[in-house]
């Protein structure tokens, strides 16, 4: 991996606005995510978290402003993202095995007709090892617990050897112990990867995260959150203390 691969910011949103049927969802949003950042995007439901995620994935286009992913338009570079969708977006009764799901992360344009190669399978095994699910590779999807389900989706996101991990509500439907385990894992992955995590649960903002972006139509990155703490606490109530409690001072910035 050469250095210039990361010379551009991983994600760059400049003056981005977006509206659904005339209702503004995002207004003048600016966000820069650098290589090896661990950013948590938080905010109330309907505040525009999912919209930011879809903009980064190139699934929607901004009404105004620009979205750059690895210095290019997201459609061109989104194959470098490992994406983990929300648990609830998938059909739990779908007839697939754990290994089937993880292999989907190895799909690519112009795949040969004979399917997955040996190296695809090796990568899938490796990804399952990372999330400690290798022993359940043959298990059908509908026999997995919530935590196992999340781990399989994480393995699928990792199997393409991404430069950015994008996780949408990764701890919904899992208990606290699994949440902590998942966090430990993400922390290890963060040694090499940039991670963006979307969550409506501020309890999830632990000391592993080094940046927090608060989204509620407008986006406030962490230092701004600090300044307007009263406004944020009006939205979130006491939860705002959890960010402050867990956060560490670094480079003079509250991060």
């Amino acid at each position, binding site marked *: 991996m050469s250095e210039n691969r990361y010379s551009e910011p991983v994600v760059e949103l400049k003056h981005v606005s977006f509206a659904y049927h005339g209702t503004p969802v995002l207004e003048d949003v600016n966000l820069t995510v650098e290589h090896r950042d661990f950013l948590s995007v938080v905010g109330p439901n309907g505040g525009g978290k999912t919209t930011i995620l879809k903009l980064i994935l190139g699934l929607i286009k901004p009404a105004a402003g620009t979205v750059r992913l690895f210095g290019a338009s997201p459609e061109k570079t989104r194959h470098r993202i490992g*994406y983990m969708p929300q648990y609830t977006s998938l059909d739990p009764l779908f*007839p697939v095995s754990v290994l089937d799901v993880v292999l*989907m992360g190895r*799909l690519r344009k112009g795949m040969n007709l004979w399917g*997955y190669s040996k190296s695809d399978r090796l990568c899938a095994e490796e990804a399952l090892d990372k999330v400690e699910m290798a022993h359940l590779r043959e298990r059908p999807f509908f026999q997995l617990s919530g935590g196992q389900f999340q781990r399989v989706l994480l393995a699928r996101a990792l199997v393409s050897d991404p430069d950015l991990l994008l996780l949408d509500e990764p701890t919904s439907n899992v208990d606290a112990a699994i949440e902590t385990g998942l966090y430990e894992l993400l922390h290890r992955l963060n040694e090499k990867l940039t991670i963006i995590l979307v969550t409506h649960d501020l309890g999830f903002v632990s000391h592993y995260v080094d940046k927090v972006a608060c989204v509620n139509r407008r986006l406030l990155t962490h230092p701004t959150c600090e300044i307007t703490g009263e406004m944020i606490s009006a939205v979130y109530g006491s939860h705002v203390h959890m960010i402050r409690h867990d956060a560490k001072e670094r480079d003079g910035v509250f991060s």
Partner: protein
Amino acid sequence: MTEFISDLARFSFLRYALLAGFLVSIACGIMGSYVVARRISYIAGAIAHSVLGGMGAARYGEVVYGLSWLHPLLGAITAALISALIIGLVSLRAREREDTVIGAVWAIGMAVGILFIFKTPGYNENLMSYLFGNILMVSREDLWLTAGLNLLILVTGLVFYRQFLAVCFDEEFALLRGLRVQAYYLLLLCLIALTIVLLVGVVGIIMVIALLTLPAATASYFSRRLWQMMGLSVVFSILFTSGGLALSYAPGLPAGATIIIFAGVVYLLVAAVSSALGGRRFIA
């Protein structure tokens, strides 16, 4: 049942019927599994009913304008493919009105068919066979045609297995991996449309959805993975078509309806036993 077996040697129409049942079961099991897994049986229903429009129009052209090449099967294939593309494009582009369009295609297709059949001179024995199927009327040419379509569906359905699986399971993720999701989804719907045309000849327009989905739904109780569901579904489909045919023969019952009732009873039994055991699947 014994009468059916002894007559099998005597009458070629029975052998053709049995063979037709075997052949369509292959396409039915594979495409039916996609339909059940992706939960789009209502789309299959709309495509099936719209087929009447194509059959009616083709029959009208055949009788009134003497276009002998205009076989009702050609009309059926055209109507099924057009419906599949309309529904597919609408569901990809404008999700919020998908159900309305499906209902419209369903009913408009039938209405067009009824008008053409009404205006076609002569005795309309065809209407009944379009609606309820006539597996006992299968000819040698029909069998070749069925075999050809079947091969097309089988090869395409299996070659793009991974892509179809990914698109059915998680469309968004497949798109992010660089797959042409829209093209694959439309191709899948077209293959489903062709399968429906094949099945219309066996059980008729009205009962097609049941034959397409019941073997796959039954198989889903015994499968971990989609390809297992497909294989088992083919087996169940063969069992239902040949069993239904055999059961209907001696009492002189309509074969299509008997096949569907047989399939339905087996499915409901499996579902009931599973539910009584707390919703468990029967997998090793």
